[in-house]
């Protein structure tokens, strides 16, 4: 394979042209804006940068964003695992429709999801009204933010765990089953270890997506500073106030956070690939 590839540079044309186009486009469209943002933040100097990103209002947004994203991810880890399990293991009427529906949060524009969830969970909404009678407020609270984040990141855990569950060898499980091992023991000792890397990678993807989510969240959040304001929205507000240094610094914080998550996700996916290769 490797020899065939290196030989192909002699035979196949178009290497210079396609690589040139790729590098030019990547530099202009992807790298340049990221570079410009980091440069802007660097020009502030460490003291000013630090003062902006540790301001009381900014720190409050980190707490709101991280807390809601953690809650949303916890829900999606459990619900995503359940959905993947049911879709792979069982056959029932409507399974195909359910499988297709899982992609809805990716296909639906975030602003549309945002206004639908805000309307649904508002005190006068279909679900908001009965919940209000139970004394549960969802809209304009951190819980509402978590619900919106959970909605927009549903597919991640389902789509990462599904293929691993499908490829799972049945012999070990069936043997354990016929020997009379209880279901819970088989699940914890045989199935869970096999799907764990993919499950963690999917959960990390869902968490990363929730940290950066904007359109899905702002309609239901209420956006009160120190209470229900997410970090992405504070960036936007600083822009509207023409406070460009603050917008740059906070956006860079989100970017750094995203890169850390990306590194973690890559490590998890590498582990998952090696894991399934061994199994």
């Amino acid at each position, binding site marked *: 394979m*490797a020899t*065939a590839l290196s030989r*192909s*540079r002699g*035979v*196949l*044309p*178009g290497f210079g042209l*396609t*690589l040139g*186009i*790729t590098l030019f486009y*990547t530099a202009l*469209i992807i790298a*340049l*804006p*990221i570079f*410009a*943002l980091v*440069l802007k933040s660097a020009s502030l100097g460490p003291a000013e940068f630090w003062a902006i990103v540790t301001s009381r209002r900014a720190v409050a947004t980190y707490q709101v964003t991280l807390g809601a994203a953690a809650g949303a991810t916890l829900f999606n880890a459990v619900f995503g695992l*359940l959905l993947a399990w*049911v879709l792979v293991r*069982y*056959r*029932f009427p409507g399974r195909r429709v*359910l499988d*297709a*529906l*899982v*992609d809805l*949060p990716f*296909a639906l*524009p*975030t*602003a*549309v*999801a945002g*206004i*639908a969830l805000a*309307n*649904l969970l508002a005190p006068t909404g279909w679900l908001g009204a009965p919940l209000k009678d139970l004394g549960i407020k969802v809209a304009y609270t951190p819980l509402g933010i978590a619900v919106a984040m959970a909605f927009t990141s*549903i597919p991640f855990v389902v789509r990462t765990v599904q293929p691993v569950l499908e490829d799972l060898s049945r012999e070990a499980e*069936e043997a354990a089953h016929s020997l009379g091992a209880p279901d819970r023991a088989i*699940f914890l000792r045989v199935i869970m270890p096999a799907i764990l890397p993919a499950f963690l990678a999917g959960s990390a993807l869902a968490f990363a997506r929730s*940290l*950066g*989510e*904007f*359109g899905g969240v702002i309609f239901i959040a209420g956006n009160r500073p120190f209470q229900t304001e997410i970090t*992405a*929205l504070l*960036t*936007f507000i600083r*822009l509207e106030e023409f406070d*460009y240094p603050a*917008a740059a610094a906070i*956006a860079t914080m989100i970017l750094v956070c*995203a890169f850390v*998550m*990306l590194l973690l996700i890559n490590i998890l996916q590498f582990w998952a690939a090696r894991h399934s290769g061994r199994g």
Partner: protein
Amino acid sequence: MTDIPATASRRQADHDRNGRTPEAWKGVAGEGWLRALLIALAVGISGLFLVVPLAVIFAQAFAAGIGGWTSNVVAPDTLHAIGLTILTAIVVVPINIGFGLAAAWAIAKFTFPGRKLLMTVIELPFSISPIVAGVAYLFVYGAQGLLGPTLDAAGIQVMFTIPAIFLVSLFVTSPFVARELVPLMQAQGTDEEEAAITLGASGLKTFLRVTLPNVKWALLYGAILCNARVMGEFGAVSVVSGNIRGQTNTLPLQVELLYNDYNAIGAFAAASTLTVLALVTILAKLIVERRAEGAIRRRGGGH
């Protein structure tokens, strides 16, 4: 799923009244009350979380009847937003198809140092919050950006214009096609192309006759997802468009504008058109997935 040999017991399973199918088997929670409970939970939570929001969109959109929906969709600003959204897709999707093809040809068909790094950079936009993308573009083309003063001196305004919407949409959706094509082209190797070139076909002819037919479904799949994201992008476009009513409002921004104006029916009428787009996208994705699987089977596993 298909690795169980056909047996009499499986054929009997077809007539099993427990709803078990030929694929059912004795495993963890394979039958009984736990199976029923898990299915009920999955369907119930999905219904509440996925179907009910869909129902809300259409119920609100048609709250004033079909006439109310129509008059809101054809309102001048909303119609303009629909036009701008379609225009953005017409500009952005073909460019990113071209980029995806070029990137896949270079990365999958040749070896050079830094291939992995290049692929990582190409996939970066997937990990970047839309708001951060918008802010980053502001610091390139805006008045206080890298190129701002130069552009200003030349009398060119990019920020808060329609080209800014095109640029930021290109950023947000740049990985979609490349991500589908690179792994597939890598798996397919270079033997067929080499054979065609050796037999005297030109590079372009080889690409059109050999490579493109082999990857057409993956290409279409990437293009469908790219299109859905371009038309639905909100955060990044929100930052760079300047939200000028009726001029630089794409459909998602129009939805926000109407909603914040307390025009719920108008907002949901606009949102319902985007929802139909999302449902069509899911359907198209399913059809393409089926076709792609069929194509792989016909190729004998794609080796």
